[in-house]
């Protein structure tokens, strides 16, 4: 039996603020207190299957400050928490695990530090390592870019055959740069390529802007896990509603009762 499909929320963090990204251009929205108080993130987090936090700071990343934010967020979240952004050494990864991360994510370092994925998976297990790839579609080709979408690495299809790297990675997080933050829906050709070529489980992201996009995407047989990063479009009860709408249309999602009735 297939596990339930997953709705995964992605928080983007940049120099003390949570941000929105559109085609990788960042817009500041609010700090940690805003997220907790105005956004009521605790409530949002009760309606998701996993949470990702990426430090996308373009300037020098303040690792200590980021760990503090992760630590504070982790305190009240009872789903897996994946943290990424600027991990260059196993010590960077360990710091995040010690701050409450259940998994870490590598992006640029997959290519720049070829031994790091192996080093992390040897200690923490490959299931704790997500490979995050930013994909730009140029005509009908899908290319991997690193360093916030600035540096061309090569073809996604070639990468999906690289067992020397993928043997240490538990899951891929595939984000479409073209669709990122547009609310235009997923790139279905990208999804099709992943379905045909990826032996590694994958989360697909980029383009989800409305509740209906969540439902339509998860109804697709090729999609088991969906990443949502549009902070402002999923405010209040919208993820709770999204789960109900998905279920009504036959999408299998996990169920759990309200936190007030633990027993």
């Amino acid at each position, binding site marked *: 039996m297939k*596990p339930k499909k997953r709705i995964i929320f992605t928080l983007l963090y940049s120099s003390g603020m949570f941000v929105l990204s559109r085609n990788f251009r960042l817009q500041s929205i609010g700090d940690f207190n805003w997220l907790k108080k105005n956004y009521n993130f605790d409530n949002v987090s009760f309606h998701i*299957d996993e949470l990702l936090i990426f430090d996308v700071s373009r300037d020098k990343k303040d690792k200590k400050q980021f760990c503090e934010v992760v630590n504070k967020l982790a305190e009240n979240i009872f789903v897996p*928490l994946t943290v990424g952004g600027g991990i260059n050494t196993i010590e960077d990864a360990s710091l995040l695990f010690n701050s409450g991360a259940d998994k870490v994510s590598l992006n640029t370092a997959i290519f720049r530090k070829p031994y790091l994925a192996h080093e992390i998976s040897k200690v923490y*297990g490959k299931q*704790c390592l997500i490979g995050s790839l930013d994909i730009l579609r140029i005509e009908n080709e899908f290319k991997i870019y690193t360093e916030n979408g600035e540096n061309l690495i090569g073809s996604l299809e070639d990468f999906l055959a690289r067992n020397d790297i993928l043997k240490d990675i538990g899951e891929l997080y595939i984000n479409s740069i073209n669709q990122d933050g547009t609310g235009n829906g997923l790139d279905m050709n990208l999804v099709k390529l992943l379905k045909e070529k990826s032996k590694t489980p994958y989360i697909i992201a980029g383009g989800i802007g409305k509740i209906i996009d969540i439902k339509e995407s998860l109804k697709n047989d090729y999609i088991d896990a969906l990443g949502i990063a549009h902070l402002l479009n999923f405010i209040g009860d919208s993820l709770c509603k999204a789960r109900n709408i998905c279920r009504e249309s036959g999408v299998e999602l996990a169920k759990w009762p309200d936190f007030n009735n633990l*027993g």
Partner: protein
Amino acid sequence: MKKIVIIDYGMGNLHSISSAIRRLGYCSKISFSEDEILDSSHIILPGVGEFRKAMTNLKIRSLDKLIINISKNQKTKILGICLGMQILCQSSEEGNTKTNGLGLIKTDVVKLESSDDYKLPHIGFNEVCFPKESIFKNKVSIKKDFYFIHSFCLKELTKDNNSLIGYSEYKNRFISFYQKDNLFATQFHPEKSQSNGLSFLKLFLEL
């Protein structure tokens, strides 16, 4: 007074478990001190990572014999989570060679069956079907969703009397819950399973 110890053997998401316990209104200690472990009412053996490394770390801290001793003493309840469940078994084939475990659950750890449609690791919320004699079964339904992330699992048990087994299904059925006397083990992560997981931990801590 509950004395809850999360065993620190350098393998795992200790903070996630202590946050979950705190949310339930209990205090816990993260420790590998023999005195604290011997004095505990509940111990939790977390575990994220690789089997061989887990066993090495347990031995370095002399925790292997201590856990075996505690399991004989009915006053302490033990909960192994994920890799913490697997190391309670006799052995594991993870890492392509056989590594011995603590031997408290009379079975071995093998690779989960997979295919193109059922990739490894098995990731996500999946149903756990608790045995109806277990206190963990839901009052209404015996099936509940819990979070899994693993590539290995327990081989079907053949000769373990009085144990209660719960199952989940991926490509095929596998053991996701084990209970015998004071020993409890889950292949899923209760600390990462929203309110279903917190309810499970609450029942365990109330034992």
